[in-house]
């Protein structure tokens, strides 16, 4: 059994987008990689909306479009502000998105992750499924030198452990590398998959071939909580879901299920799902704390990627691309250290953070670092008052009832002022601009 004592170059904990990206890049570069996944297969435990952003994956597997299981490429984005009966929409649709190498796709994670995992194995990594890493093993100096699993036997050693373990970061927590995720920094999202014939989907959303539509919605649908709803078109199904910050759920006592039922029955959503058959439901946590919630990312012998590092851009609904990018960058850091025969010390692994700072990942998260707190503190206005005011203004404006337009304008402004003081509105506007910059 001597060969088991030879340490791996790297152990990757988890087989989601970040773990697969990290394991793939390291294995492809010739490192001796072990990846450990608790699910029965990669994707069996993973939940997402889900949108795949091509760019991040293209940098890892350039020819992925030829083989990955993709549903539809997105040609239209609808942004909806909703009150109880209406939505005000901004839609952007462009034939430019029908390009040869489309930019965004809807995917089904169970299938996509399985494919990604098969690429990891092809690249030469050893992958263990149905095995849970329980804790990290350290030497006397505190450096992480391996992992223990829930299977009987000796610990497995490695020069570095890449923690791609997902939003909860349980291994990191148990090993004292990080705190528990704060309920204010994480959203709970629930979703359902509704099946429809592809012709129905195409007719209903004005699509042809593999074109797809994405709807992102905010407003009174979250009952005053910080959150958003979504609806994505897949090949023969529609993913519909909604999510809010966990601490808001605790405060309001609204259940995620009620929220989703109400969203599905909203007059703007209901006809889109008509006659469909719900075949699947799922729930997942999404790290939405942004820049300020990012835990310590590196230390002696360990490095954190993906959701475990809170790498989600909540404003733009991006996550899997940040996961793949952080996985890739971590892998490249480990590869270059291994090549130079350098130790995986805290100082050397800090190179990962330097590289991330230069990438869109940290730049974007930094840009929006004030947003989570701003929304949290003003959720009543942003997810209730303003959407309601907007709907009322639209209705006043578009309803033809013999009242002159000047009076209508005045009525709209009066409504705004009376509901939310001028100072209050200006203050919110100022805070949004400041948080956005």
């Amino acid at each position, binding site marked *: 059994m001597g060969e088991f004592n030879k340490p791996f170059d790297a152990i990757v904990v988890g087989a989601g987008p970040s773990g697969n990206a990290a394991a793939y890049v390291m294995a492809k570069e010739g490192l001796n990689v072990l990846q450990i996944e608790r699910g029965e297969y990669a994707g069996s435990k993973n939940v997402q909306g889900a949108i795949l952003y091509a760019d991040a994956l293209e940098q890892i597997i350039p020819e992925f479009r030829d083989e990955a299981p993709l549903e539809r490429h997105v040609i239209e984005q609808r942004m909806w502000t909703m009150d109880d009966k209406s939505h005000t929409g901004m839609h952007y649709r462009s034939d430019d998105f029908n390009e040869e190498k489309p930019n965004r796709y809807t995917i089904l994670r169970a299938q996509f992750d399985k494919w990604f995992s098969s690429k990891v194995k092809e690249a030469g990594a050893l992958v263990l499924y149905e095995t849970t890493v329980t804790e990290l093993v350290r030497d006397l100096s505190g450096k992480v030198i391996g992992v223990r699993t829930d*299977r009987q036997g*000796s610990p497995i050693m490695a020069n570095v452990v890449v923690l791609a373990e997902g939003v909860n970061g349980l291994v990191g927590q148990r090993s004292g590398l990080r705190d528990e995720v704060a309920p204010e920094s994480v959203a709970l999202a629930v979703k359902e998959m509704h099946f429809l014939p592809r012709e129905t989907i195409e007719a209903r959303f004005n699509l042809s071939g593999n074109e797809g539509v994405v709807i992102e919605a905010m407003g009174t649908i979250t009952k005053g909580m910080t959150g958003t709803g979504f609806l994505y078109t897949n090949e023969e199904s529609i993913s519909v879901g909604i999510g809010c910050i966990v601490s808001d759920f605790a405060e309001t006592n609204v259940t995620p299920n009620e929220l989703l039922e109400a969203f599905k029955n909203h007059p703007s959503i209901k006809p889109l799902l008509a006659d469909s058959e719900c075949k699947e439901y799922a729930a997942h946590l999404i790290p939405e704390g942004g820049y300020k919630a990012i835990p310590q990312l590196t230390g002696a012998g360990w490095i954190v990627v993906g959701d475990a590092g809170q790498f989600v851009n909540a404003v733009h609904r991006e996550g899997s691309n940040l996961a793949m990018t952080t996985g890739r960058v971590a892998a490249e850091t480990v590869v270059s250290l291994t090549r130079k025969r350098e130790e995986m010390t805290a100082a050397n692994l800090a190179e990962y953070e330097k590289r991330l700072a230069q990438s869109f990942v940290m730049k974007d998260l930094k840009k929006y670092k004030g947003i989570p707190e701003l929304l949290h503190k003003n959720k009543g206005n942003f997810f209730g008052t303003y959407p309601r005011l907007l709907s009322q203004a639209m209705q006043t404006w578009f309803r033809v009832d013999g009242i002159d337009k000047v009076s209508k304008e005045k009525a709209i402004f009066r409504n705004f002022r009376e509901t939310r003081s001028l100072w209050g509105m200006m203050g919110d506007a100022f805070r949004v601009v400041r948080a956005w910059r």
Partner: protein
Amino acid sequence: MHIVVCIKQVPDSGQIRVHPVTNTIMRQGVPTIINPYDLFALEEALRLKDKLGATVTVLTMGPPTAADSLRKALTFGADRAVLLTDRYFAGSDTLATSFALSMALKKVAEEFGKPEIIFTGKQTIDGDTAQVGPGIAKRLDYNQLTYISRIVETDLDGGKITVERRAEGGLQVLETKLPVLITMLEASNEMRRGSIENALIAARADVVTWNAEAVGIEDLTKCGLRGSPTIVKKVFAPTARTEKAEIVEAEGKADARAAALVEAIFAKAPAVESDLLEHAAQHYV
């Protein structure tokens, strides 16, 4: 001792979806598992290995992706995995399957030693025929013990084995000579969780892969669809029943509740009431 366990990769019936539009089974994306009955067979083999020392070979016939199931069998502690795969085997019924597997087993005997015991599950969850095990035993001229719930004793020196067999109306205790093919009954044991070493060995292991030619099959008309006299004529989804079950709620003592139930039945089906009254008038008055 050499033990071979024949397993089959099957779609996870708990996760099969029927296409809502075409009513056909959606195989794509449905996870596959080791036929659950075969796990009892594998665990029994591993217990014999622990007790008496043995080499355990797992064998399956299927598409190249069936290697996943073999690898999983290795994580439980099997020593060697053999995959019999060839496009000529596609569409095999139980006759063609038992032929191909028996040829593979002859090759296993040549390469790795003659197995004293061949284990299988009592049947698969996708075919439910329970014919392949006995078919193999017949073709290899092995004694066969089906629906076995317990191995009582294995006497290697004496070349015999004693088992318990669940039969209608009781439990049979049977003794027979080795070599033997045993099909295991469900709930006869519980599959273990393999150690981390087993998991690593499995992830690294090469699956021995043979095609029809490699196992010496010359007459390809005995294989696959051509060698299968069983024909699936039609697959259909049963139509959903329109009538719904109803729960009758009633308060009070047992006889009051029974009366309420009878009343509810009579209200729904007056013919039942009149029939019963007629019957009573004829026989009891």
